[in-house]
């Protein structure tokens, strides 16, 4: 060790440089000449039954419609947290899966780079179904007028609320954020029960929760031109100050929320330690199969209104198909097969409310119509906006989400005790840098 001088490191690096004959990402090309097969990456759907059904459909399609043997199907389960790393590595090596479920901005990120197959025909086919699809979901998949993904479902972000606690305190579900704070103070009993399980950790859900509240105060991240960043606005300052007051003054959000991961709010609600959480109905779906008692006490509501009314978030998962695949028709065929209303409905219903069907007609089934919890869902699905509002889920918006710029802003206020305006100014600068970089490229 003693003798390890810089020149040795350089020598070693030099030797390595000789070995590196070219950019390493080019070498993956040989992979394109592969045998006929279908590679599908499965991201778990929340219920074992739905996962099972989907697996069956993949093999069914391969055997009956693509003429593939079982050994020619590569079916891999990729857990949510690992998906991005694995996808990045596989694309870099020129070896991506043929079909995968992509989250929001991933479609536009990889689509803009030209990696994804144009699926406009498939989407148009879906639109021709009676009553059509929820067009709000198209924001995620449209790139320069073409659909580069097929929206799998619309995901509203309702407030999960404890009806029994509201009843006990003899109050209604709050209409506005001001009311929300008052109601919260009435029904909570910390440290056992906090009112609001708002995500404040360095994770995606925090951006969702924070932005949704800011929208109600008239704020937004970027204009619809996807260029003009407007984080540093009076409306956003007012919204951030409300969050600050909820956290510091009224203490209706647990301090631990600062280090929650995406599951933090789910866990808090599911273990009866939070009365309100803003989350997709994955929590409801969990209760449906694991805790009927709490499910009965749970209502799903639109987000309370701010000075500018109420805005609801949706997020969209889509199926995407990579061009690298030498057999694009098989990939397109699989996606069409998934989206055939009969096949599709079975999976959607087996998720117990986790996914809202993208086909409006399927929303008319008793499953959705007979439960009062889902009363607000159709409106939320129709009018919901993506987290990048007023912009669309572009690659730049994806980077803002993935690098937790907005969670870092809110932690500046809540942890570092910065003024809301100062934190928003810093945040605005970072987001501007990200948008500028993407728009240049």
């Amino acid at each position: 060790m003693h003798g390890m001088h810089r020149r040795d490191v350089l020598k070693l690096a030099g030797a390595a440089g000789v070995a590196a004959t070219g950019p390493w990402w080019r070498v993956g090309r040989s992979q394109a000449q592969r045998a006929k097969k279908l590679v599908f990456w499965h991201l778990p759907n929340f219920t074992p039954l739905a996962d099972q059904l989907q697996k069956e459909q993949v093999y069914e399609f391969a055997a009956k419609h693509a003429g593939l043997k079982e050994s020619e199907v590569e079916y891999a389960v990729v857990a949510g947290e690992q998906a991005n790393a694995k996808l990045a590595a596989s694309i870099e090596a020129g070896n991506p899966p043929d079909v995968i479920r992509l989250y929001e901005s991933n479609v536009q990120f990889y689509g803009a780079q030209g990696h994804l197959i144009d699926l406009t025909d498939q989407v148009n086919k879906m639109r021709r179904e009676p009553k059509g699809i929820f067009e709000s979901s198209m924001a995620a998949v449209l790139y320069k007028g073409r659909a580069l993904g097929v929206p799998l479902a619309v995901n509203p972000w309702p407030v999960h609320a404890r009806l029994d606690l509201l009843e006990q305190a003899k109050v209604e579900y709050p209409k506005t954020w001001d009311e929300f704070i008052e109601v919260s103070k009435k029904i909570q009993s910390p440290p056992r029960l906090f009112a609001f399980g708002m995500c404040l950790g360095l994770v995606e859900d925090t951006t969702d929760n924070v932005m949704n509240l800011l929208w109600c105060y008239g704020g937004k991240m970027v204009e619809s031109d996807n260029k003009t960043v407007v984080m540093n606005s009076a409306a956003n300052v007012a919204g951030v100050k409300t969050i600050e007051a909820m956290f510091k003054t009224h203490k209706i959000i647990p301090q631990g929320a600062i280090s929650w991961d995406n599951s933090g709010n789910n866990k808090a609600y599911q273990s009866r330690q939070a009365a309100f959480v803003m989350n997709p109905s994955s929590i409801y779906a969990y209760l449906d199969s694991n805790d009927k008692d709490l499910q009965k006490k749970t209502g799903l509501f639109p987000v309370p209104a701010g000075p500018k009314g109420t805005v609801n978030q949706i997020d969209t998962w889509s199926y995407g198909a990579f061009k690298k695949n030498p057999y694009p028709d098989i990939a397109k065929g699989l996606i069409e097969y998934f989206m055939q209303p009969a096949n599709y409905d079975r999976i959607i219903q087996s998720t117990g409310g986790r996914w809202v069907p993208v086909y409006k007609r399927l929303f008319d089934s008793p499953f959705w119509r007979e439960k009062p919890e889902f009363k607000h869902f159709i409106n939320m699905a129709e009018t919901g906006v993506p987290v990048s509002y007023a912009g669309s889920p572009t690659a730049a918006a994806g980077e803002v989400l993935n690098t937790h710029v907005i969670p870092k802003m809110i932690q500046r206020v809540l942890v570092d005790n910065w003024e809301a305006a100062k934190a928003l100014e810093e945040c605005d600068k970072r987001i501007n840098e990200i948008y500028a970089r993407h728009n240049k490229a």
Partner: protein
Amino acid sequence: MALSAGQPDALREELLVRAPATARRPRHSATLRQEAWLAYGLLTPTLLVIVFLVAYPFASAIYLSLQDKMVGAPGRFVALDNYLDLLRDEVFLRTAWNSVLYTAVAIALKFALGLTMALVLDQERRVNNFFRTLLFVPWAVPVVIVALNWRWIFDDLSGLLNNFLITFHLTSDIISWLSDPRLAMGCVIAVVVWSGTPFYSMTFLAGLQAIPKELYEAAEIDGASVVQQFFFVTVPRLRTIFLTTVMLSTIWTATNLQFVLILTRGGPASRTEIFPHLAYTTALGARRLGMGAAVSLVFFPLLVVLIIVLTRRMLRQADE
């Protein structure tokens, strides 16, 4: 263990450069050439591994850090722009400070705790073997599991710590271990220390047991106190082991990603942001491979310098 490298000079340049002892016999150049071929033959697997699995990816990373490459898109050569952007960013300074603090404190604590463990286990006691195995247990647990388990212990609402404190009325408020900016780094370090200490105690114990008992007896006859015996008999004998253990542990600690990734993700408010995690989020979160490589590489010389300084100082002491 490299302790193995047992002899102090195994680590020294002199030894690495000194011709092997077999060269004492005069030999013909033909024999020498033959010997060289044999050596390269024997080293072939190792060299292949180093060249293709370490050096080549490493060179790629250096090349990558000079581009503005994103995942999935070809990069453009931007020379040192990534590095300059990084150095200008205030996140860089904070991360550098955190990384140094995290590594230094964790190493110091592991050292102190490991030495204590080794000294305790070196005492005569029945079933010492059994205790030794128990104290070794954390080393056998995969880091991912260690981190997940501790996150569950720190959990503000369902964790062992808060439950324990509240059940026994030691506190009325819940303590947000990983959310409190004053506690978060300490918690991360505690987990690193828990997980890494057995390595120290194991190597230190081996060193202690190798010290001849006569040395202590002689020191005692000379009237040396227990403390004096420790500093004048034990410590000098353990110097090499201290050096090697600390060096390896520094590498392992400083480059570890999983503890921070699972426990805090760099939060709250960047209080636990360290280079491996920053590199990971830049390369895979932001999908900026070029910048991510630059972050990793900026931290690499820091590590090399740290280790050179460390080993030099300790070797100098050993020579005195």
